[in-house]
């Protein structure tokens, strides 16, 4: 009997990026070869009941591996960050819809927190595709900065490194010559994505955001992780599934 997208995979690498965030590498050629930026995987966490979703942070098609970033926020993520290389883990993926870069010459990637992981995958992919990429990432303070590259625009809330302020302060430094050919993609907390969406709209640019909701299945079957999007029906909105219809949405569709 044939079944797909459900794998038992091996953890092959692990490093801590700061005191509560680690970077895990898994061997799974199927996911490594088919995943696109913005998609996620669901990983079993040991003793907790539900799998946990993580945005894919990087793929290596040659080695058949992919990476995720795990920030410890509760029992499940604490267990996953305690996994050691060599362990076998149940995984579903790749799940959801990724970013759509088609038709854009320039892409601005922005985000913060664990949003930097999918941004990393998007950066690697766009660089490979030869697109003009600008990255602007925001963190609370210097100790939270992870996966940062010298070419990135960096902002911190307290200003102890990079530009002081939110990612909007960083985005304001970018010279946007052709807004119609420029896409901005944002992965971060809801207030950040809402602000970036408004900023993009002011500049006349399209914006794609990666929404996050408490999920159960990740496969689109339980309808637990809904996102409100605009609708022409009597309610003016409808609930769609973050995991299956997203997680990436055109920011103008989202009811913020």
């Amino acid at each position: 009997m044939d079944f797909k997208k459900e794998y038992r995979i091996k953890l092959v690498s692990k490093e801590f990026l700061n005191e509560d965030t680690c970077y895990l590498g898994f061997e799974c050629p199927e996911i490594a070869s088919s995943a696109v930026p913005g998609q996620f995987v669901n990983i079993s966490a040991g003793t907790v009941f539900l799998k946990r979703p993580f945005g894919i942070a990087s793929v290596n098609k040659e080695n058949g591996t992919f990476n995720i970033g795990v920030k410890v926020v509760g029992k499940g993520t604490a267990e996953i960050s305690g996994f050691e290389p060599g362990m076998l883990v149940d995984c579903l993926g790749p799940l959801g819809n990724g970013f759509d870069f088609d038709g854009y010459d320039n892409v601005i990637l922005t985000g913060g927190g664990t949003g930097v992981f999918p941004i990393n995958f998007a950066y690697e992919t766009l660089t490979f595709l030869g697109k003009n990429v600008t990255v602007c990432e925001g963190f609370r303070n210097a100790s939270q900065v992870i996966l940062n590259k010298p070419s990135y625009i960096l902002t911190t809330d307290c200003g102890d490194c990079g530009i002081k302020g939110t990612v909007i302060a960083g985005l304001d430094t970018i010279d946007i010559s052709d807004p119609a050919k420029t896409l901005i993609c944002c992965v971060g907390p809801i207030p950040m994505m809402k602000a970036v969406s408004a900023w993009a709209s002011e500049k006349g640019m399209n914006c794609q955001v990666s929404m996050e909701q408490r999920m159960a299945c990740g496969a689109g079957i339980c309808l637990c992780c809904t996102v409100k999007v605009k609708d022409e029906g009597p309610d003016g909105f409808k609930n769609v599934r973050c995991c299956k219809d997203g997680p990436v949405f055109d920011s103008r569709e989202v009811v913020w």
Partner: protein
Amino acid sequence: MVSSSLSVKVGNVSLKSPIILASGTCNFGRELAEYYDLSILGGISSKGLTIKPRAGNPGVRVAECDSGMLNSVGLQNPGVHYFIENDLDFMKESGAGVIVNVAGHSYEDYIDMITTLDPYKDKIDALEINLSCPNVKEGCMTIGSDPAAIRYITSKLRSLTDLPLWIKLTPNVTDIKATALAAQEGGADAVVLINTLMGMRINIKTRRPVLTNNTGGYSGPAVKPVAIRMVAECSQVLDIPIVGCGGIADYQDVIEFMIAGASAVEVGTACLIHPALPVKITEDLDNYCKENNIVLKDLTGTLERW
């Protein structure tokens, strides 16, 4: 191909295997077809449908628990007309038995649903009447907690269709035998035991319920002993078959439910973690039948009480 030793009957409904995907954990099957061939299934019970589309409950809809989860989806569904246009044929063509789960807020809603679905009886194997959803304010569990109301609505629906009527009951009652008997007296072809147990979780920092709906339905392996007890109790008093549901996660759980009195079972929450679980359960049941030289349906109601 599923071995013939797994075939079962629920009243007049023949299923190639006892495994039915539980309503609300498989949508209409389409997404799961990305994981495995649905034709191995005995049936798919559709997402709970209502006459008009429902947006469902706002806010947080899932709260994880020990060995299970609470949900408060609130019957989000596209409405029965959209379902007939867009999903019914897919279910039929999947090769699995088609069970349509019918929900409502009033007697009239249920009656409207049956008269809407009855013309499509060629594509439907059974109607599962949801008198047990804990996540909507009116109808469903309110009707399903009152034996007189269950008897009334079941007999009303019985008069409107020849399709098999499976009444899905709530465990949130004092005496499950009384509600199951009421369904039987109303003319039900089977009862489905159990829907979710009503529960609550609280965020101790905010002192607010985790679920925006405050309460939700508890499902998963933790509820299995409750479901098995209810199947066993009802099996002693009912003449109609029972479809067991609640916490099934492996083939041994299926066998346990069947010994307790179930003719078929529904698998739900466990598939949210392992979408392809029914494939594994089907293979394991097949091996079990071979090793023990039995056909599965012979297990139903073979409980030896102390």
